[in-house]
């Protein structure tokens, strides 16, 4: 059974800084978070007030990110931040064609980015959003804002995407078929 515990002061400070970067500190500052320790991975879980009092469960709340040297949001975390705040400076907006490709796990070409903040740095985590401003994936910038829109080059590496589950399901099905042959 996984272990849940309250956040330490340092962890909460690190999380608060990240929430600030993602533009949701004011909205999230009163929320409850627990740490779920899975082997060496520290997962940050958002829980309701009542759940914060319980710790004997195998799964609790929504995993919004992981703590390493910094807080890194999960896809669900980034989605929550975007739905809560509506706007922040850590995103790239892609066109419809790129949206389909991202949902197949493909990286993002500079040509297909239709909007990105002018403050993006190289090698940072960004939410990949569609034209409805919905988070469809998480990516890492290969360039800063001056080069992120350049044509003919992959400028965002897709780390996770909302289509992953369907692909996992297909893999599981084909693995079962292979085993049964």
């Amino acid at each position: 059974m996984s272990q849940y515990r309250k956040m330490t002061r340092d962890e909460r400070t690190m999380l608060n800084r990240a929430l600030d970067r993602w533009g949701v500190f004011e909205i999230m500052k009163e929320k409850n978070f627990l740490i779920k320790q899975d082997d060496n991975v520290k997962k940050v879980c958002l829980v309701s007030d009542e759940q914060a009092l319980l710790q004997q469960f195998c799964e609790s709340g929504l995993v919004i990110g992981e703590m390493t040297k910094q807080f890194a949001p999960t896809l669900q975390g980034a989605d929550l931040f975007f739905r809560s705040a509506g706007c922040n400076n850590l995103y790239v907006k892609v066109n419809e064609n790129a949206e389909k490709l991202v949902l197949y796990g493909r990286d993002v070409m500079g040509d297909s980015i239709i909007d990105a903040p002018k403050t993006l740095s190289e090698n940072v985590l960004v939410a990949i959003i569609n034209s409805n401003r919905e988070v469809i994936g998480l990516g890492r910038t290969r360039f800063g804002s001056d080069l992120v829109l350049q044509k003919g080059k992959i400028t965002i590496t897709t780390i996770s995407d909302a289509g992953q589950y369907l692909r996992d399901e297909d893999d599981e099905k084909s693995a079962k078929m292979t085993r049964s042959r």
Partner: protein
Amino acid sequence: MAAEDKDRFSMTAIFPESARSLSLASRYGYDPWLVGRFLQYIPDIDGFLSKMERPPTKYIRVNTIKTGKKELSGRLKSKGFILADTEIPEVLSVKNTPLPLGATNEYLLGQYYIQDLASCMAVEALDVLPDQAVLDMAAAPGGKTSFIAQRMNNTGMVVALEPNKKRTRSLVFNLSRLGIYNTSICSIDGEKAADLGIKFDRVLLDAPCSCEGVIAKDPTRKTNHKPEDIDFCAKKQEILIESAIKVAKPGGLIVYSTCSFAPEENEAIINKALQKFRIELEPINHGNEGLTEFAGIKFDPSLRNTRRFYPHINDTTGFFVARIRVKS
């Protein structure tokens, strides 16, 4: 109820074969014993058997945590979906799909969940309120659990029990995709719910059952369903409902549901609980009245307050729902 009647439901009632039951069984490919039973408790049997030959109507539940009903239906309609309102505001029936329901971007983004209307009726009957403590005793894959959490707007506490580790995985995924964060999952059997040491305002027991109501989805049940299955499920259901009553707060609500038509798994279970515990049945707005008599045995008249959903009448999968109030 006479003493000998009390134990009568420990064995599934089988009725003598008739020319009609044999003819219908042969025409639609069922085991005759099953049609013989259906003739006793399903109205308009021809309509029912014919309906079970057609694919069931599909429904989606709008995830109001992530989007609005108008917004989602507008987007799906622009892709060629034909949708219609139902008795439950969040649920839309899907009349036409240009692509599989589980393959749209909206689905992947957790904006809706594919869920039968009858299944949503169980949550509707549970009447959850924000900030309550709610127990879902058999949670995977999470359709009802996530609807409960959605109705509570991610407040309070939902405890979802699921002893099967494999099924827990799909439960975790679905809750995550739908953006639910007021739910905890516990890998214990519903029989041991009291071990949690918590009393709940609401308890949902969607009991494991013989699944007679989903024959349209799984036609193999026409012949691989056996009377012993009903016996086996009824025994388990009796234990689970006792467990549910024990963890509910005085004045709290329990909803008992199954996707079976068998009275031994439905009215008979509730009837026994009514005799044993300080509980009462409350009416439900939708569906058809429950049975007050089966196989010559009379149930408590308040069993009329339970509800049956029939595919050919309600356009849902077959379902049974009882709303039980624990007396203060």
